[in-house]
């Protein structure tokens, strides 16, 4: 591995080479059957550079992100291990970072995590010992200073490419770029954004990002989620916090005959992808086809992003 790389992950190498990167996403199962992951992997393999493995997303108990990441690596693919601050204190977080790195994980995504109220254990105690920005700081300190948060030296520091999420559509809008600046200052290497439906608003956010020069210090991957149906579009517009689905997109899905809605959803995603490629400072795309993994390849293919570079 070359010294100039932080972790040497494929994702890092693609981004550093200046090519438009593609990441996908894989949600672990609600059970102990590894075949579920393997099956999803077979649909996703070679369709992107790396794949996020979610960490108990929406606060529903699932197979752990670390274990699922390892299963994915056994399939010859590169995971981005997600980690939320909701379920672990700094002792468990640092321990899992060491464990993940020891098992060969090279990318990690630092998140606050959905509130447990939404999940299947709303009775649970949440942790939030750290917030997502402090988590970025923690991983960077471990990787670059070879030190734990407590100050003790690490023998065998974890080499991880550090990612985080950002939602350009959440409120208050005016602090969404300053918030990104805080993440950059804390040491984040790449950002995956919330699903982009409102492209003009995303462009406005990116303009502010570029004006501050942040794009020179962090790789930004725009988030894409295809609608499966008008029902899903409506649900995302009305029920998912921080999601911005413009009226004209909703109407377009509504006016499409039911049997053609899935196809139209893919069309919208591909059109959005084409626009993202034109925006200054956008370094790649993060395709989140929720329980629709077989479509990641189709979107990437139609967007001219396949085959993926072999770095």
């Amino acid at each position, binding site marked *: 591995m070359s010294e100039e790389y932080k972790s040497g992950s494929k994702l890092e190498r693609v981004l550093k080479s200046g090519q438009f990167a593609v990441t996908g996403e894989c949600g672990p199962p609600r059970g102990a059957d590894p075949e579920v992951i393997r099956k999803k992997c077979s649909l996703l393999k070679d369709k992107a550079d790396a794949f996020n493995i979610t960490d108990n997303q929406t606060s529903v108990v699932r197979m752990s992100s670390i274990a699922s990441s390892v299963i994915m690596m056994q399939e010859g693919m590169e995971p981005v291990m997600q980690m939320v601050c909701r379920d672990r204190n700094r002792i468990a977080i640092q321990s899992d970072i060491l464990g993940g790195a020891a098992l060969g994980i090279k990318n990690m995504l630092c998140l606050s995590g959905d*509130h447990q*109220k939404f999940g299947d254990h709303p009775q649970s105690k949440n942790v939030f*010992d750290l917030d997502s920005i402090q988590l970025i700081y923690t991983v960077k300190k471990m990787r670059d200073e070879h030190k734990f948060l407590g100050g003790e030296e690490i023998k065998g520091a974890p080499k991880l490419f550090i990612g985080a999420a950002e939602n350009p559509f959440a409120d208050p809008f005016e602090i969404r770029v300053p918030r990104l600046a805080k993440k950059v200052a804390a040491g984040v290497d790449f950002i995956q954004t919330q699903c982009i439906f409102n492209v003009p608003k995303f462009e406005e956010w990116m303009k502010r990002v570029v004006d501050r020069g942040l794009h020179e210090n962090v790789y930004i991957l725009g988030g894409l989620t295809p609608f499966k149906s008008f029902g899903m579009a409506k649900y995302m517009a009305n029920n998912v916090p921080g999601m911005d689905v413009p009226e004209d997109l909703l109407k377009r899905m509504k006016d499409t005959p039911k049997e053609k809605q899935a196809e139209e959803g893919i069309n919208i995603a591909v059109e959005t992808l084409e626009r993202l490629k034109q925006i200054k400072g956008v370094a790649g795309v993060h395709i989140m086809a929720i329980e629709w993994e077989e479509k990641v390849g189709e979107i990437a293919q139609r967007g001219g992003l396949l085959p993926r570079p072999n770095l």
Partner: protein
Amino acid sequence: MVIGERKPFDEIMKMIEGHNKIMVLGCGGCVTVCLTGGHDEVKVLSSQIRMAREKDGKPLEIIEKTIERQCDPEYIEGIQPLLPEVDAILSMACGAGVNFVAETYLGKPVYPALNTTFVGGSKKEGYYVERCQTCGDCKLYYTAGICPIARCSKSLLNGPCGGSTKGKCEIDPEVDCAWQLIIDRLNSLDQMDRYEEFMAVNDWRTNRDGGPRKMIREDFQR
């Protein structure tokens, strides 16, 4: 002040099952102000208990008493002469009061009639909201007087999560996003530069995580 809410009646009845004479002990402090554990509430709860036990054919005698504060030994000691008469004390104070009474009278069962809910204040009469989590290291200078630890559902210190929508928290459209309030106030005070400061990883030792806390005024110790 400390806010408390009365426990469900059935839970209270279960606790005092088997006792024939109890004291219902009110507190003149916070719980009087928030209308859940003062003199008036002692009267109401006592008559409810009497009626219920009467109906079950197991009448119960009650001594109604409200003291200045249950978190202060000086006032708690005042009830001692009445205690030989009762089997148990049903305290209508906050959890701190219940603990103090229990520590003072080791031989007497003490039961809580309230759930202690939070430290806060009243927005209007009968409407109470949480404002402090007693973390032990006040950060309100940085956040324009609005506490992210008590009021952000995730206690985030470096800004809102991605779920903040139109000023509201992702967990409930009735709950204000603390960070929206902080940003609005920082803006109006022209202190937005404070937002850009990285809030370091928190030291939770001053919080309950460091173990039970105490505060000692040395000049008062002899």
